[in-house]
């Protein structure tokens, strides 16, 4: 990683620095135009965009401005030109702010906030509605999806004041969110995915409720390659300093294996369910983040 690519300290600086790059990005939705509106996405129905969709026979009462007179000249029949409708996507950002997210020499929560800011900027710049909710075992703060520059300010303000607390409970948090959310669309979960309950059921619950789930996992480098002195006693940051086992060389080796296995299981689950999944570490540079998001097909470059 070079100094050039090091992420700035705050989300605002990040957006200022990489605005041009982010302007060329777009969130790729698998269900385009799910909600008709003023968005830039093609809708599933016909509408009033400039993009041609089809012809149909003229009926009484149709707007004569859309009659294709060239066809009338050849066929002596009136046909009407139809255009694709414009649609918008609601982007729901769910940011895990449980205690475990404060772990790491470069805390995972700071990194996740920057990711959320990037998602927000990219969504809002494409006229999508973007909302942000922070959660641990319950929902902490909810900013419903909206469009516009004002929403970006609100999103950044909420990100700045968010801090870690509580233990994560995906099942409870997601259930509450689906009940409270009136719109559906893309739902990006930014979390380390260390949850005591069954994360599979929680993610399926979101998908069943109509959300297009995207999982962005944030880890600290120390979680992947722990450097622990033998005889060290572990304490749990998430669950009120719960005492854990005493470390030895064998335990560390087995942890690394277990960690890889857990990541593989999570990745395989997401693939099976059709959830785009990307794993990041808080030490990644901007370029590396971009590459991973593009490779996962979560973002596309226009």
């Amino acid at each position, binding site marked *: 990683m070079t100094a050039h690519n090091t992420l700035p300290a705050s989300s605002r600086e990040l957006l200022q620095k990489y605005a041009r790059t982010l302007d060329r990005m777009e969130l790729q939705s698998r269900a385009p135009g799910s909600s008709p509106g003023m968005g830039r996405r093609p809708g599933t129905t016909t509408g009033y965009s400039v993009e041609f969709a089809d012809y149909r026979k003229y009926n009484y009462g149709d707007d004569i401005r859309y009659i294709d007179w060239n066809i009338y000249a050849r066929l002596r029949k009136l046909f009407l030109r139809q255009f694709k409708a414009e649609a918008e996507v609601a982007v729901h950002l769910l940011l895990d702010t449980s205690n475990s997210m404060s772990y790491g020499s470069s805390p995972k929560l700071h990194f996740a906030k920057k990711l959320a800011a990037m998602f927000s900027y990219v969504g809002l710049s494409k006229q999508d509605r973007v909302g942000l909710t922070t959660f641990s075992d319950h929902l902490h703060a909810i900013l419903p999806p909206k469009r516009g520059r004002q929403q970006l300010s609100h999103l950044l303000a909420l990100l700045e004041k968010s801090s870690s607390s509580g233990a994560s409970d995906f099942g409870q948090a997601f259930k509450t969110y689906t009940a409270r959310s009136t719109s559906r669309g893309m739902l990006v979960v930014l979390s380390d995915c260390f949850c005591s309950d069954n994360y599979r059921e929680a993610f399926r619950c979101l998908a069943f409720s109509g959300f297009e789930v995207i999982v962005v996992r944030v880890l*600290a480098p120390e979680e992947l390659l722990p450097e622990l002195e033998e005889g060290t*006693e572990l304490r749990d940051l*998430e*669950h009120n300093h719960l005492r854990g*086992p005493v470390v030895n060389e064998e335990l560390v080796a087995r942890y690394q294996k277990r960690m890889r296995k857990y990541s593989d299981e999570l990745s395989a689950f997401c693939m099976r369910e059709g959830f785009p999944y990307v794993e990041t570490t808080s030490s990644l540079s901007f370029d590396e983040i971009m590459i991973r998001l593009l490779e996962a097909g979560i973002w596309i470059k226009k």
Partner: protein
Amino acid sequence: MTFLNPLALIYALSIGVLLLLHFRKPKKMHWVSDLQLWQDIEQESMQRKSIFRIIKRNRLLILQILLLAAIVLALARPLITLWGGPSRTLLLIVDCSASMTALEDGIPRFELAREKALDLIEDAHNADKILLVQARPRMNLHTYTGSEKAAIREALNTMTATHGSVDIGRIVTTAVSSLENTESVEIYIIDDGTQAPPSLNTLPEVEVHTIRIGKTGDNVAIANLSIRENPFSAHDRQVFCEIENFSDREHIFPFDIFLDGTVLITETIRLNPKQSERIVTDIPAGANGILHAVINSEDAMEIDNEAFAVLDSHAMSVLLGTSGNLFLEKALQVNPRIALTVLKPEECTSERFGRGYDAIILDGFQRPDLPPGNYFLIRSESGRTTGGSSLRAIRSLTSPRPEHPILAFVDPAGITLDRATPLDLTPSDAVILEGNGYPLLAANETGIYRTVKLGFDIRDSSLPLTYAFPVLLSNILGWLEPEDSGPGNQTAAGSAIRLRLPAYDASKDLVVVTPDGKTFRATAGKGILSFAETESTGIYTIRYSRAIKRFAVNLSSRSESNIKPVDTVTDEHPHSPDRPATAGTGRETWRWLLLASLLLLALEWRRYQGAA
């Protein structure tokens, strides 16, 4: 497997200390984001737990325990019998008494004994356990194995004969009692045969072999040298010397006594076989120094041809505090062994008392808080009133302890009193004299200090007019400051001596220098020195608190001077006839254990560095 130093196994307690430290060691803490994965792993480990896993997990601790165990075992010196039959225990007792310094054809008996002992050692098997006993006044025992021949040879070569007397029978009994079991035990006693062989009837299974070195009996000895009072002059002393011919031939030899190098007496003595002669001569009045008696006889033993005594007759310093007592002052002044200081009662201060007087006499007055010392209190008990009810016209005194040294040569029956005050007694007071049933003279001994209390003024009695008065006074002062180990400050070689050290300061070093120049540091509890390292004859010097005191050590043992063997039969069987030809080979394993501990230490260090 047996242990040559089983006491070292007590160091195994250090393993417990190690475990205690291990489990009480404060652990470092490290925060992790979530314990879920760690706990899953630990749970799996618990399910698959095996001894191997436990060992693997605690490798460092196990290495440390093994390291300690190896060191403790090495210290305990395990002996492993590799093959073959049973091993023997050889108890090798070498006589180191004074009679072993006698010459046999120009060679000291002890050298001959040493050669015999070395021969026995060479014949020992590796599996044999060898107990080498030096039969000295203070017995010395070392344990070896047959494989340690070099160490035993070195021990034998550094061994020397003492100038003290030894009871071989007692040494054998003590050495045998130190054995764990008496099976396969063979005792070899190498001595000169001057003592009857010890009886071990209670241990019939023990083989006892005696190797007698002594043959000759040609010896003339100074059997006794002592200082005594002159029976014709109370204040003069005499030297008494007894010379005895233990040999079977006549001896004519010169005899001299020197006092600090000055000849006191010199004469030629002729002694028939088994004859002794006593020589007595006066010592000049007030003379001090070292008496050295020497005979120039051509005999087999040298150390009893001379004897020493120390004349240390310093005047006894006495402080008399009185407002005027002619009888008392005169009686003390006429005694040439007393350096008297007379003070008025008002001059008797604690500062004056603290000037190191051997005895202090307070006549008829009190002083509160008397400093520690020897006191003769005449109607002046400190801290206690003497105003009890007075007794009048006591016609006779009686004594509940007529054998007390204070009453030696004193007949109290003839003493009459005009008036007296009964003594207030403490539990430690011993009543010496009573009048009409009331205590009038008592003695008290507390630690090294003594006190005598008299309940009447001697001027109110007939005591000064009787011959008993100076005797009683002399007895009292003699009891207050007794002489050390008898006149001449001497003791027998190998015996402990007990000496009072005046003005001893415990905060300063006390060093005893032996005749051969060795120094011993010692302490004198309560001002009394007990010293037992007296295996050499000659003059010993005690240096303490800028003072010097000497004492003499002489052989003074007729049994040692009489070097003629009572038994010359040698029963020497280095090899037991029923002993199997292929005896087991014992091997000490402490070297291997030490090597193993070094390897374990290296392994532990490597493991520790790896873990860190």
